[in-house]
């Protein structure tokens, strides 16, 4: 994936974060989206380890040793930030207070099934808070490269790995496209600059509904 394609993907995902939202960004690519969210946008970032109102990342020299986000980055408070224990943190998640969560994926299926926590016997990090985020955020979107490092599709007809949550994903942002999970199947809704519909179809492991009208570019 070229740097350009990655940036476009991150910038496109950032556009789905709007004023007034409470948002949780997963570790890795999802957190990178923050770089493209306008600094003056009124948004409350939630972190599983007990923060509402996560502020900007700090470098080591200015870090507070007691203040990290769930990904381990040293962050800062904002006016209005609150800290709480892990039970309260997940009360926020399970009771539907999150408007949006952006998560990474090992596999995401055309029906919205998400697998992102274990590759049995090989990579066994555990789910952390992903199961509750995937199941209970009002909107769940995945941000991922369209294919893995071997070129295999990450968007599949059916997940082969243990699920994080079934039928939870509504939107998928990749370096090639934006796809929406619909009752009729997976719909191609936007195309990255310089990418053709045929390329997206070839890189996707599930049937795609392709609208007849020209697709927006990002």
């Amino acid at each position: 994936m070229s740097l350009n394609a990655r940036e476009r993907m991150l910038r496109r995902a950032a556009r789905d974060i709007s004023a007034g939202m409470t948002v949780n960004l997963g570790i890795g690519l999802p957190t990178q989206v923050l770089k493209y969210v306008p600094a003056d946008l009124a948004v409350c970032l939630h972190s599983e380890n007990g923060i509402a109102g996560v502020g900007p990342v700090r470098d080591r020299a200015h870090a507070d040793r007691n203040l990290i986000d769930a990904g381990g980055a040293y962050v800062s408070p904002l006016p209005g930030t609150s800290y709480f224990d892990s039970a309260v943190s997940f009360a926020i998640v399970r009771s539907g207070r999150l408007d949006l969560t952006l998560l990474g994926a090992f596999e995401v299926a055309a029906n919205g099934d998400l697998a992102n926590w274990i590759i049995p016997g090989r990579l066994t990090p555990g789910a952390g808070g992903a199961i509750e985020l995937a199941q209970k955020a009002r909107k769940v979107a995945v941000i991922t490269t369209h294919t893995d490092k071997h070129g295999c599709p990450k968007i599949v007809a059916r997940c082969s790995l243990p699920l994080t949550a079934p039928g939870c994903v509504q939107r998928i942002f990749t370096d090639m496209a934006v796809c929406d999970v619909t009752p009729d199947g997976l719909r191609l809704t936007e195309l990255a600059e310089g990418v053709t519909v045929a390329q997206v179809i070839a890189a996707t492991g599930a049937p795609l509904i392709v609208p007849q009208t020209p697709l927006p570019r990002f």
Partner: protein
Amino acid sequence: MPLPDKTCDMATAIARIPDGARIMLGGFGVPGTPFCLIRELVRQGQRGLTIIKNDANETGMGVDWLLENGQVARLITSHIGLNPRAMQMMNAGQISVEFVPQGILAERIRCAGAGMMGFVSDIGIGTVMAEGKPSVNVGDRSGTLETALGADFALVHAARADTFGNLRFAASARNFNPLIAMAATTTIAEAETVVAPGGIAPDDVHTPGPFVDQVIALPELPEVYGVVER
């Protein structure tokens, strides 16, 4: 009427832990992990332990010391992805790992701490996480029974304690600490600062003293508590 003094030296407090104990540890990553208490547990060498903690720390820190020293039989946790040794030992069958969704882990611990036996939740339905759990219907919704998770000992890290065991945590170092402090038969709290009763205002107490059995003042904070170089 003065409140009881629960201050204790670290070696004596940790020596009460027997082989095979179930031990809860505070911390999410570095913040809130009771490294000094864990280091003393490594020094004393109790074995066959069940460790209940959000994560397995990172290489060369906290839970990793216990794993390296062969003291852990079982880990109940939500995430071990930052500790390659934990993943290797799990996949080699050297330790058993029970993964619990993070908020369910927190709530099961809170539930034990509140003297309850369990609760009903729909988290993990349709995944392997729900396998083996009794199904429960509440009205027209179905969920699974989640059992309370208690322990023999909780090892807590607080920013500030008074001698009665009232505790206060700092920023994201709070995480699981107030929950595990309630859920164990014996709760041992290490604190960066220990003050006389009244040194923490009543409204500022995060964990009330009745949950805490021993208070240990940390003389100085080893480097492992500091900002991590990555």
